[in-house]
């Protein structure tokens, strides 16, 4: 039951937006929104009030193939663009539940990624990506869990119809692996799915058309490049 008392409705909307309602109540609120104008108004007001808090979540690059999956799932997607078979939905859910069971260590690993300063870490891999004119552009640091943390040093605007794509080329490999699109500036954490940062690995950022390269290799100019190496122990 969605309360009609304004005070109660206000409190319910606040908790809905905060996210603390249980599954049943949250579903009830979501279902009532399209038809209940008063509820919709207070929910929208709460969304706007609390929105600045989303800045507390560390930006992180999604898996490189996610847009392709979204596009394939949109209504009216061309049949020949159907996604290649992916792990069955059931298997996926199995993994989710399993995920909860091993949650403690996974959560710890995830949070470790947020922590910048760690006492006495193993040799850290890092590099500074340089422009073709040898100007420092990005600091890249490998995290313990295998993620790469990037921070822009001297951001330059990118044309509205171009995006930046991040690549890694392990030593000895013949083709780079896309690590996905990144913003033109700021800090971002990228978690490679199929490779782990190693000394000597080339990290590069290329300029690509919207959505990124469709060929699996950089198609535009490589703007920034650097090679991972162990940071000196001090």
């Amino acid at each position, binding site marked *: 039951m969605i309360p009609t008392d304004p005070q109660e409705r*206000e*409190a319910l909307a*606040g*908790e809905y*937006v*905060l*996210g*603390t309602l*249980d*599954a049943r109540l*949250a579903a009830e609120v*979501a279902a009532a929104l399209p038809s209940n104008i008063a509820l919709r108004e207070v929910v*929208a*007001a709460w*969304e*706007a*009030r*609390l*929105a*600045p*808090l*989303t*800045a*507390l*979540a*560390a*930006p*992180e*690059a*999604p*898996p490189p193939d*996610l*847009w392709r*999956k*979204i*596009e394939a*799932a*949109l*209504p009216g997607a061309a049949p020949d663009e159907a996604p290649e078979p992916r792990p069955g939905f059931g298997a*996926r859910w199995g*993994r*989710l539940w399993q*995920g*909860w069971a091993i*949650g403690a260590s*996974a*959560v710890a690993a*995830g*949070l470790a990624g*947020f922590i910048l300063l760690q006492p006495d870490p193993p040799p850290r891999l890092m590099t500074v990506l340089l422009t073709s004119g040898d100007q420092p552009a990005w600091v890249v640091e490998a995290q313990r869990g295998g993620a790469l943390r990037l921070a822009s040093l001297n951001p330059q*605007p990118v044309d*509205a119809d171009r995006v930046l794509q991040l690549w890694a080329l392990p030593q000895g490999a013949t083709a780079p692996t896309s690590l996905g*699109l*990144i*913003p033109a500036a700021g800090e*971002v*954490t990228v*978690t490679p799915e199929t490779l782990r940062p190693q000394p000597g690995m080339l990290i590069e950022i290329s300029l690509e058309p*919207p*959505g990124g390269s469709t060929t699996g290799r950089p198609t535009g100019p490589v703007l920034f490049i650097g090679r991972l190496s162990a940071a000196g122990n001090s």
Partner: protein
Amino acid sequence: MRTEPTLATLLVSVAGGDRGALRSVYDRQSVRLFGVANAILRDRDAAADALQDAFLRVSERAGQFDASRGEASAWLAGIVRHAALDLARKRGRELPSDDPALGDIPVAPEALEAVAATAEGRRLRDCLAALDEKNRRGILLAFVHGLSHAQVAARLELPLGTVKAWIRRGLLQLRECLA
């Protein structure tokens, strides 16, 4: 930057069925939004599922975005948070979390500075700062990491009933402060 369409303009095009506009929204916002989903789910596979869900919702509901009620970026983040929260609930979020480090980052004293990038954010930061310490932590843990009442209670070592009442009171206090 130059003639780039605003997010709000792109959403109008999305509502008209323009898939290229949806793609542009994704290109500009997916890194931020994936971070929002992953902070709640702490599992990249699940966060990807949530973001996919969210973009399907965006393509369906872009016509409901009302620029007079708030920023397009806030509207998008709201859709992503609810998609992630729905998934967290399906995963049995109601189990208390016993990880001692969970949520240390958003409740760190300097973290609130990240919120203060806009005028609205600065007001929110000041109003949060006026809340009782545990009250503020409970609200931040719930919003950023998607913790349930029970998880917040375990994290703050307070009785469940107390946490529920405090969070409710804290929210109403925030609203008054921001009014």
